[in-house]
């Protein structure tokens, strides 16, 4: 007789073993280790929710305290490797194999452990890719997630930082997996039900509220004149030129400068309502002045941002909010929105090569790219036109009936030619290639591929790669904005001037921008405190960003 319910039987056995440690669904923080040791089986695929922002830190501590004799050889499938415990489990032999997306703070340690063979690496994904594989071949057996509160039936309020949770739960709960949620509070009634209780098997009342890092807060006080100049060029030379309404921004200071220039420089150019109206974006504090000045129609968010909750709550016309009034974010949907519904992605990188491939990895850090490649790629599945998309498509050229030529998403790299400590951003060869060789990776970790990037903006000018017709032109267009780096000084001056005549390269003066006007007085907010004032006191910055 065929067995069609083996997975369900295993699930029942896990729950049976776990029940003695729970009161109904509720488990005290002190019993986490017992609970996890009861549920987990060697070789399980486990998603220990580590998102871009929120962390199931109580469960992470619990997992890393499990007895490796009982819990071992786990296969971790989670988007973020953020907490030390995320890697401790590999050192202790609790986990063995890893598929992930992003690892900012732990990038150097991951690299070391990969070199040392302590981690068996599946792949470094983009967010959407990893989420997709949750439903195909990386479905978790056990999901350890985080929320703000739950009732005793397991109905879960994720709070503004919903992030990955719905996706992880969807894949786990509907495929015979076990879902354990840590929450800050057990309540009689949750403010809203983000995850219905029948998808949550256990709720752990955490000893401390889950940790969230303020990743998207850029202090306007640190924005430089060079970043302002680049922001002016981006606004005038790209946003205005293509009429970009639907967009996503990276998290660097360059894009923060753009956000802070919209109500001042953008206003002066008469662009309000014509650009930057619809966003797939985390709630960046630096966008507050533009929102308050009426630039922004709506924003869908991947996650939230520390200190922005009350502001968002008071601006439901702009943000997606639940019946309780708080933000509803969702990383999978927002990534999809960024991929298919935005006409422009603009972000920064650490290295760009002569073809235009870019990467943020260096030889001793394996950070991954999270969502940037989803935003920073041209979706071949797109079928709806927009003026921006069609114009970019026309610039890219091609032959045949225009009605058969697809448009192009604008993918813009906003980079200063030299980074910290005079490290050049333009290189002949990406460090990613060296890393791939050392780790024996088939695929070098590239953030944005050359054939996706359409423009490069530096303090020297804008290179429009769509208009390049040969590889040689493309290389010279890149060299032509690479400033005084070796790559920049290696340019063919005559050819660069020819590209400039064809507007493939545009200098500030070609755009009618005087570099000496790039002054901090152009910023709509020059400090975190200004942002608070713009928000009418609704934005509550975390302690480390205050100077009052």
């Amino acid at each position: 007789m065929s067995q069609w319910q083996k997975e369900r039987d295993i699930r029942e056995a896990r729950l049976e073993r776990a029940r003695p440690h729970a009161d109904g669904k509720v488990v005290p923080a002190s019993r986490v280790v017992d609970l996890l040791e009861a549920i987990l089986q060697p070789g399980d695929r486990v998603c220990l929710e580590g998102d871009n922002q929120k962390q199931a830190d109580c469960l992470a501590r619990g997992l890393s305290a499990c007895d490796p004799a009982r819990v071992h050889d786990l296969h971790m499938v989670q988007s973020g490797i953020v907490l030390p415990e995320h890697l401790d489990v590999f050192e202790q032999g609790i986990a063995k194999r890893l598929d992930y997306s992003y690892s900012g703070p732990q990038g150097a340690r991951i690299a070391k452990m990969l070199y040392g063979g302590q981690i068996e690496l599946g792949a470094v994904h983009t967010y959407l890719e990893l989420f997709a594989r949750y439903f195909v071949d990386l479905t978790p057996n056990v999901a350890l997630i985080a929320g703000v509160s739950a009732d005793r039936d397991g109905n879960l309020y994720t709070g503004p930082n919903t992030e990955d949770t719905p996706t992880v739960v969807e894949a786990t709960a509907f495929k015979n997996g076990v879902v354990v949620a840590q929450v800050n509070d057990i309540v009689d009634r949750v403010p809203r039900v983000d995850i219905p209780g029948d998808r949550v098997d256990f709720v752990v009342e955490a000893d401390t509220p889950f940790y969230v890092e303020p990743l998207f807060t850029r202090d306007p006080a640190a924005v430089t004149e060079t970043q302002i100049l680049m922001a002016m060029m981006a606004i005038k030379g790209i946003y205005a030129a293509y009429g970009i309404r639907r967009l996503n921004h990276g998290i660097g200071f360059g894009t923060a400068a753009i956000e802070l220039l919209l109500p001042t420089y953008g206003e002066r150019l008469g662009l309000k309502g014509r650009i930057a109206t619809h966003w797939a974006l985390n709630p960046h504090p630096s966008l507050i002045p533009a929102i308050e000045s009426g630039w922004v129609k709506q924003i869908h968010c991947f996650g939230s941002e520390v200190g922005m909750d009350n502001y968002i709550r008071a601006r439901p016309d702009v943000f997606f909010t639940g019946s309780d009034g708080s933000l509803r974010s969702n990383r999978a949907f927002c990534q999809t929105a960024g991929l298919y519904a935005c006409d422009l992605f603009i972000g920064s990188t650490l290295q760009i090569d002569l073809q235009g491939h870019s990467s943020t990895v260096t030889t001793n850090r394996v950070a991954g790219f999270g969502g940037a490649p989803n935003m920073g790629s041209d979706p071949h599945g797109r079928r709806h036109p927009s003026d921006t998309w069609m114009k970019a498509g026309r610039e890219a050229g091609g032959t045949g009936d225009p009605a058969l030529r697809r448009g192009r998403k604008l993918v813009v790299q906003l980079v200063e030619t030299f980074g910290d400590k005079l490290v050049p951003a333009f290189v002949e060869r990406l460090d990613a290639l060296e890393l791939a060789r050392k780790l024996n990776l088939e695929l070098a970790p590239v953030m944005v591929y050359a054939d996706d990037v359409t423009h490069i903006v530096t303090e020297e000018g804008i290179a429009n790669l769509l208009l390049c017709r040969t590889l040689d032109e493309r290389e010279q267009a890149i060299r032509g904005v690479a400033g005084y780096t070796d790559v920049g000084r290696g340019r063919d001056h005559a050819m660069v001037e020819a590209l400039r005549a064809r507007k493939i390269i545009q200098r500030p003066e070609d755009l009618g921008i005087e570099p000496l006007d790039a002054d901090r007085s152009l910023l709509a907010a020059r400090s975190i405190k200004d942002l608070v004032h713009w928000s009418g006191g609704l934005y509550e910055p975390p302690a480390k960003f205050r100077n009052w």
Partner: protein
Amino acid sequence: MEKLSFRHATRTALPGTRASAITGVVASGNLEVLLERNLAPDACRVEIDTAIAGYGAVWAAVVADFVARRQPGGLTITINDGGARPDTVSLRLAQGARLMEMP
């Protein structure tokens, strides 16, 4: 620290009559530029004291571009550099030239 010195001939003198001007502050990644109108109208001298050694070729290129663009004839330009990036150097040089052109 490294000292660098460049001399250039210019086609014209920098407009204006101001005798001297200063812009910028010596700090990490920043620099100060002192401009003095005390040379022949077709000559420009640039003296640099930089915190980071080994970037002579980059400085040479930055200064040559500045001289070609602004034609700072007549100026001695003295720089105290705290390790500024070339774009910051270009910006300060341009700011300095503009100050010297002011009435």
